[in-house]
């Protein structure tokens, strides 16, 4: 019988209650060309070291849980095949630009707050009135936002974006793209509320159009494009205030 091929995984390890600083630990994993990095990490957890901590769920690029840095690149580990790295070792780290909670798990709290800030849901004045039936849309109206609705909140774009790392007030690619997705939805009436937040100093304008968010997006959402469109929309809103200073523009619905 032929000798089993193996591949080395170097995992970022950090348990805040016992470790004073992070370290890397190497594991030899059986190599299977059908395996993805997530399979290898699950194998380590099941058979070698149960203390390895990581997030995952669907294994099919839908849930957005298993994003990690694979050899320095933000990737969904369920879509990163071992065969693309074999025979070289694979270094797996938690997503950068996030605080590390434990091993490969990052703290998503800041991201969730930013997501809530853009109100990523349909806002309507007549939300309880269903007497008119469903809100109909033409295919053209659907096409306006459909691409941006494919986001799975995997946060790879936050790890790829240099501005996210430098500027705490920057809302970041996914949140801005989602805000834009609802601003472009013909059923929505909450654009002014959302722009209230998006137009503030660094929230959106912090983007310097590096474009890496779009490069790493596993769902081809193009957050960079969404941000540029949102900036154009925001600039229109900004100048509208000079034309119609009171009671118009993004001053409505200031929220809290």
């Amino acid at each position: 019988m032929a000798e089993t091929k193996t591949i080395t995984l170097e995992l970022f390890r950090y348990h805040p209650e016992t470790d004073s600083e992070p370290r890397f630990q190497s594991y030899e994993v059986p190599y299977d060309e059908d395996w993805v990095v997530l399979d290898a990490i699950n194998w380590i957890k099941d058979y070698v070291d149960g203390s390895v901590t990581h997030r995952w769920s669907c294994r099919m690029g839908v849930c957005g849980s298993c994003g990690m840095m694979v050899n320095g690149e933000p990737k969904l580990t369920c879509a990163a095949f071992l065969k693309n790295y074999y025979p070289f070792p694979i270094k797996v780290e938690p997503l950068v630009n996030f605080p590390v909670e434990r091993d490969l798990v990052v703290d998503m709290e800041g991201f969730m707050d930013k997501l809530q800030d853009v109100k990523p849901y349909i806002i309507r004045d007549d939300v309880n009135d269903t007497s008119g039936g469903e809100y109909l849309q033409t295919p053209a109206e659907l096409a306006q936002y459909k691409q941006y609705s494919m986001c799975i909140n995997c946060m790879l774009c936050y790890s790829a974006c240099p501005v996210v790392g430098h500027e705490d007030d920057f809302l970041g690619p996914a949140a801005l793209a989602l805000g834009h997705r609802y601003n472009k939805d013909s059923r929505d009436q909450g654009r002014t509320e959302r722009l209230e937040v998006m137009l503030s100093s660094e929230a959106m304008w912090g983007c310097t159009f590096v474009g890496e968010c779009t490069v790493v997006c596993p769902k081809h959402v193009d957050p960079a494009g969404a941000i540029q469109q949102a900036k154009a929309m925001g600039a229109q809103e900004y100048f509208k205030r000079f034309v119609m200073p009171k009671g118009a523009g993004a001053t409505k619905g200031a929220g809290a």
Partner: protein
Amino acid sequence: MSRGKSGRPTRPSGEAFWWALFSAGGVMAAIFVPAFILATGFLLPSGDPAAAVEGAQRLAALAGWWPVKLVLLGVITLSLFHCAHRIRHTLMDLGMRRLAGFLKLPCYGGALAGSVWLALVLWGI
């Protein structure tokens, strides 16, 4: 001042104004400037030196006409502000993010100075 969930101030920003200049300048720099260069630098000059000189003189005369002056002023001024904004944000990416406010002075000030100089030059033609 109202704040978002993540503690962000929801104050509108003047950044929209600079971005609008940047955006308009981007169109100018990407479409009109190459078109001008193509027309005046490659298409108009022919193999015949005398014809080339005549063409250049005609162009200079054209630039003396006030609607053309206005177009040149618009295209070049907006392109300058486009450059200024790009340079400012590149410097911010390179680690000068804390100086974002101060950088407006040399960047947009430079673009404004260039625009004033251009206006004087055009005035003199």
